């Protein structure tokens, strides 16, 4: 790992890379802070810009957008009580009450510091653990990879609880969309309708930008833009934390960090879940749980450390296995593939320098985010004052330009409009987004491995007879059936209580 340091340092000090890191971080923070936008959306929108960059520059830019987005999400939660993204949902519960009690500065300082701790140390842990995970991954065959892909797709469903059918339907749509074009191994044209634009498959940007960005903007407008309340910048000066604050929260920080790292590592999970789990753990472990929800500082520390610790956690399976830890790492895997980097155990042998560049970039961007947030803390309220009609109209143009740049023809931009229509229908039907993203990105990986497995053994039973694959398949099945189990157990409990 240390032999790559001169290369990594050389990349990070290049003026172009430094400039893009700064721009990516600022744009990411803005996307993270504004409710309705997110770091994932920023990565999606600006990914085509990286096509002409070297892969190192692309990695630095995309990671800056992601880290900035994840670290900026608490701003909306604290100042408005509206989470910037799903990763900061539970930050609202205590962050906003703190702001209302006149402690906005302290809540923001906690958010900034916790984000830094989570991201920085998870990057270090990630760098140390990824190579070890890759060593284990060498022992894995196509059966295990297939099962891992299934686990990644189904774990997202397990947390969608009551919407299991809808989650699975979104996964199914993702699998169908991933099938378009020539099939692997057999080269059979699927759903191409003799159209030359469909032979190579549907582009990731075309599908995902259409379904998630354009349709999201139109539906948000259809529902009526909600103007953010004006927040004063008074009292937002200074850092706001002292050594005693850290001492008081040391246990909470360590626990939340481990929760975030662990949940981030699980395929398919991410910051959207880790912040909720860390919050409830902090509440359960607290001597004063009654203070939670009323402006308790621990209730801000826990989710913010955990959601950012998920970043390093999610990067481990991404780098070592080629399996995304969450929807943003799924996008990053897609982007890196375009740049000729296939993630997985072999990447350490073929492009170890690039893998460690990723982890070091995350750590450096964490520092940069913290520095920017420290300097700009008192200007946070201005980010939230951007008028919706200006912001969304500019974003729409970026969406359409991205689709054109991605494919080089207007046909695909038209196709993106079709997927925008699909996205509107999905939103109307209440189908969730994340399962579709994961299925669309993981579908081809799963299919390739599944077909290879069938070529080797000619039977599906091997998926269950190989120990690791068998366990993972059982986990996947359990995830699909978990809402049924939960419902049955709930009914039995109710029955017992009534007796």
């Amino acid at each position, binding site marked *: 790992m240390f032999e790559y340091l001169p290369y990594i340092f050389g990349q990070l000090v290049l003026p172009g890379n430094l400039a893009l890191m700064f721009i990516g971080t600022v744009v990411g923070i803005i996307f993270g802070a504004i409710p309705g936008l997110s770091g994932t959306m920023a990565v999606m929108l600006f990914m*085509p*810009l990286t096509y*002409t*960059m070297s892969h190192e520059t692309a990695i630095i830019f995309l990671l800056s957008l992601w880290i900035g987005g994840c670290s900026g999400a608490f701003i909306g939660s604290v100042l408005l009580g509206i989470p910037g993204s799903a990763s900061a949902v539970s930050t609202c519960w205590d962050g906003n009450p703190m702001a209302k009690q006149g402690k906005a500065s302290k809540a923001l300082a906690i958010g900034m510091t916790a984000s830094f701790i989570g991201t920085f140390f998870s990057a270090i842990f990630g760098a140390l653990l990824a190579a070890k995970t890759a060593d284990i991954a060498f022992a894995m065959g196509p059966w295990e990879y297939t099962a891992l892909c299934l686990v990644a797709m189904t774990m997202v469903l397990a947390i969608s609880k009551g919407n299991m*059918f*809808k989650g*699975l*339907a979104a996964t*199914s*749509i*993702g*699998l*169908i969309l*991933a*099938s378009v074009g020539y*099939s692997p191994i*057999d080269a*059979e044209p*699927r759903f191409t309708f003799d159209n030359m634009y469909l032979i190579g498959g549907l582009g990731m940007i075309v599908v995902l930008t259409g379904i998630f960005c*354009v349709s999201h903007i*139109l*539906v948000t*407008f*259809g*529902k*009526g*833009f909600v*103007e953010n309340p004006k927040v004063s910048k008074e009292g937002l000066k200074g850092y706001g934390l002292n050594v005693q604050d850290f001492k008081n929260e040391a246990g909470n920080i360590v626990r939340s960090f481990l929760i975030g790292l662990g949940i981030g590592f699980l395929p398919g999970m991410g910051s959207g879940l880790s912040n909720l789990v860390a919050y409830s753990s902090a509440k359960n472990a607290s001597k004063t749980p009654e203070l939670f929800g009323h402006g308790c500082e621990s209730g801000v520390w826990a989710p913010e450390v955990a959601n950012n610790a998920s970043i390093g956690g999610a990067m481990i399976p991404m780098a070592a296995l080629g399996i995304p830890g969450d929807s943003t790492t799924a996008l990053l895997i897609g982007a890196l593939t375009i740049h000729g980097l296939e993630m997985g155990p072999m990447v350490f042998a073929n492009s170890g320098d690039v893998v460690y560049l990723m982890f070091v970039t995350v750590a450096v961007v964490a520092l940069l985010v913290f520095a920017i947030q420290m300097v700009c803390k008192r200007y946070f309220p201005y980010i939230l004052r951007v*008028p*919706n*009609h*200006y912001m969304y*109209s*500019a974003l*729409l*143009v970026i969406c*359409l*330009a991205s689709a*054109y*740049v991605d494919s080089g023809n*207007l046909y695909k*931009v038209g196709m993106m*409009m079709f997927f*925008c*229509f699909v996205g*509107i229908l999905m*939103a*109307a*039907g*209440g189908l969730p987004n994340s399962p579709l993203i994961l299925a669309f990105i993981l*579908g*081809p990986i*799963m*299919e390739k491995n*599944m*077909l290879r497995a*069938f*070529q080797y053994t*000619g*039977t599906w039973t091997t998926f269950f007879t190989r120990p690791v694959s068998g366990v993972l398949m059982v986990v996947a099945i359990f995830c699909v059936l978990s809402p049924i189990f939960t419902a049955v157990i709930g009914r039995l409990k109710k029955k017992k209580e009534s007796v």
Partner: protein
Amino acid sequence: MKVKRDQLTGAVLVIAGLFFAYLISQFKTPFTPEYPGPSLLPGIGAFGLIVCGAGIFVQGCLKKDEDKVFLTKKGWTRVLISFAALCLYVLAMKYLGFLVSTPFLVYGVTTYFAQDSATKTRLWVRIVFSIIVAVAIWAMYVPLFGMTLPAGLLFE
């Protein structure tokens, strides 16, 4: 009887699943238990759509609560008008190119989106904003990152 949204969603998913299942049945490479071939992945997807669609439909039938309104009639009109404007923009880009058609779209959309806004926007601000956005995005993609945006058939 009023059709519930879940019933409609479920029915659409089942129909889509059946449609894809039909297309899959037309694949040349046969599906066998020893080697499922190219039908495997879309087959799982189509099967999932049919089963989940049926499940959502049944859930919709069993649900006693009234549906929450997703979009009002006014909301749907807004979505459709914006959608139509974007489709028109794609067509305009083909003939007029990015730099000419974008300011018109941005101006139109900004004006349309601003209808609910509490802060009034001035005409000249919207015009200047539209031109700046078009030029800034063009500059970001074309000279800065060396990419191409539609030049327009009329100007080629």
